[in-house]
């Protein structure tokens, strides 16, 4: 089998005795890599596709209520360019305001009543070994293969100008077991997908990133010398994209999940759009409950009903992982490419952040994978001294959130860091605008 790997739930705040004796508050969460079967939830009565925003502008719909859509038909348009192909056939039932499942301003969502599950290929099948590079790239653009990053960018856009590419076969968040299970289920397809990416992407070096416990299964994915195996510790922040990229020696390396790589492969070889999203139902302590295969665009209300989650006022529902996910205020939001996990945190287990002052205990420094001076970044950011925060490593932060997980004073450190980064970026943009205006005169 692939791995008889770690299946530990996260014991955050409870380091082992030896860790205490050594004074190392290593709260890094172990990642599960043992595979878990996917339960297919089928097609819900209504699917919702969020169009989002492009450069601050709400993306408008390209369809009207009552229209019939066929698979591959664009649902939105940006500057007369088609955007977001529908993966299903069905009838448009509504076009309305909808919250973003990522933290972000809302936008337009197109609600489709699906006719039936798609069985026929949408595009003509190409041969993975001989298809022209341009044809494959065009296919990926038309099929809108998107990354699970924030904001979801197109694979083809992300690939241009990238020198190194990492296909990550381990999961990023505690409790999530999508990639590990996918590797066990579709190992052969994964190997072909990696070969396809290596041939087509035009990168100098392609890596397969895998947790140390998966290296045997992952090793089979990279037969050629052009493909390297990147062994990562099976602990939480080490499989995050910036940490993985750093290990390749190219900090700009593009990190693609195995699910995205397989979707790209399916689009080429089987002519399919990405109709499904795989995600793990995780409990509030970071243990996986079950793996689910849901239709892309399934609304959270349908997902919650299918999982038999009993929600009460005061509970937290998190889309995405426990560390980097977004808590939802409405069940209208729908599953998209970036949602690897659904977490239900019961109200009594929610530990709110506070505005207590920093007591300089150093827990954040001990836990920071980059050894940043998080306590000082948080203090400066809290009082609006954003450029001072830079001196303590603000720009290097990869936003893993471990500092805020362990903070004794329960300070919202990750939010303070993000605020400082955002303020500095806005300030830099404003300065740039002023310089351009004065230079133009």
């Amino acid at each position: 089998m692939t791995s008889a790997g770690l299946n530990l739930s996260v014991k955050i705040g409870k380091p082992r005795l030896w860790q205490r004796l050594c004074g190392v508050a290593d709260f890094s969460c172990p990642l599960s890599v043992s595979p878990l079967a996917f339960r297919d939830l089928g097609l819900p009565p209504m699917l919702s596709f969020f169009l989002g925003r492009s450069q601050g502008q709400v993306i408008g719909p390209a369809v009207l209520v009552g229209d019939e859509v066929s698979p591959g038909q664009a649902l939105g348009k940006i500057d007369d360019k088609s955007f977001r192909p529908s993966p299903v056939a069905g009838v448009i039932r509504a076009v309305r305001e909808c919250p973003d499942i990522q933290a972000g301003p809302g936008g337009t969502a197109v609600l489709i009543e699906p006719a039936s599950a798609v069985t026929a290929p949408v595009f003509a099948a190409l041969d993975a070994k001989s298809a022209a590079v341009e044809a494959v790239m065009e296919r990926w653009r038309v099929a809108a293969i998107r990354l699970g990053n924030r904001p979801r960018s197109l694979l083809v856009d992300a690939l241009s100008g990238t020198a190194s590419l990492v296909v990550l076969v381990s999961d990023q968040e505690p409790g999530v077991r999508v990639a590990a299970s996918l590797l066990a289920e579709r190992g052969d397809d994964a190997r072909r997908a990696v070969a396809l990416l290596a041939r087509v992407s035009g990168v100098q070096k392609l890596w397969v990133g895998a947790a140390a416990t998966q290296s045997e299964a992952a090793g089979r994915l990279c037969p050629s010398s052009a493909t390297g195996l990147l062994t990562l510790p099976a602990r939480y922040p080490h499989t995050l994209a910036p940490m993985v990229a750093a290990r390749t020696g190219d900090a700009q390396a593009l990190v693609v999940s195995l699910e995205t790589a397989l979707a790209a492969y399916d689009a080429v070889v089987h002519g399919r759009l990405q109709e499904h999203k795989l995600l793990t139902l995780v409990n509030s302590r970071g243990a996986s409950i079950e793996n689910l295969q849901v239709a892309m665009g399934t609304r959270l209300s349908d997902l919650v009903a299918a999982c038999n989650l009993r929600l009460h006022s005061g509970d937290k529902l998190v889309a995405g992982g426990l560390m980097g996910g977004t808590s939802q205020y409405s069940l209208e939001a729908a599953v998209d490419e970036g949602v690897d996990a659904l977490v239900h945190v019961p109200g009594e287990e929610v530990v709110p952040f506070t505005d207590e002052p920093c007591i300089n205990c150093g827990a954040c420094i001990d836990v920071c994978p980059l050894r940043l001076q998080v306590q000082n970044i948080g203090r400066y950011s809290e009082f609006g001294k954003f450029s001072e925060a830079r001196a303590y490593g603000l720009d290097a932060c990869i936003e893993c959130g471990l500092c805020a997980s362990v903070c004794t004073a329960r300070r919202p450190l990750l939010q303070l860091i993000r605020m400082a980064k955002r303020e500095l970026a806005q300030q830099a943009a404003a300065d740039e605008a002023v310089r351009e205006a004065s230079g133009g005169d």
Partner: protein
Amino acid sequence: MATEPILYTVGVAPHLRSRTSIAALNWTMVLALLPTEIAGAVGHAYGSASGGQVDLGTMSQTLTAVASGLGVEAASLWFLGIMGTLTMALGLGMLVEYLTQVLMRQPYRALDGHGALMGALLGLMMPPTTPWWVLFFGILLAIVLGKQLYGGIGGYAMHPAVVGWLILLLSWPHHLYPIGSASIAAASVWSVGATLAGGLFLWWQGCIRPQIPIAALASVAVFSLLFASRLNGGPLDQILDGHVILGAFFLATDATSSPANRRALWIYGAGFGFLTVLIRAFGVWPDAVPFAVLLMNILSPLLDRLKPRMREVRAS
């Protein structure tokens, strides 16, 4: 559909959060002081530390007479009195903190246990014969001058309880160092051992980081060998004497007034040990620990400049 709309809790990432808090930290430290309090009270009441032998004039004679008249052993009365004093110190710490927070229009944080901890520590550093009003002044000064005027928890530069203790020492030295009586915490080798047990408990609970106590005790041992000619007793005597253990585990490890970086912690602890021995060897005061704590507190922002080397994973 449910009849009532469900209102979800929204919050920023991360959603996995440890249950630790400032209150948990402080109350665990208060709890860890309990063995010291009991052992100190026992040492003074029943042991040879002083207790029953100290003559407090008519007052204590009357009390002893009343106690024996009631059939209560005088030593039990002393034990209860010491425990009562320490409880009062703890409560006074909270009360003073609450009142200053009312006056300063700060959020009320008295229940987070920091004032209580400061009161308890100050009470422990006093001899049992100290009048109650001296203790009261000490706590008032510790909380108001040592802590709240700096902005409260997280803001002060020097350990509040030590600041309070030093002001008392300068004001009423005869009450802090009465002849023939040690402080409650330093009653006997048993109470020092109890403090050590409490300190190890804190370490086990993750409330303190081990660098400071380890460095402090090692440095006391090393420097007491170096200055052996000017000291009474060997390294072990120096460690077990007075407030060294209390200082290494409870006073110097105070989060706000100690550095945050690990390398800085080693130096901070070693400096504490060095200053303790230095002041004991060449100074005039019998117990050097509070001075050493205060001096290292002042140095701690400087020591915190010893940052670890950042790991760069982002192309800048």
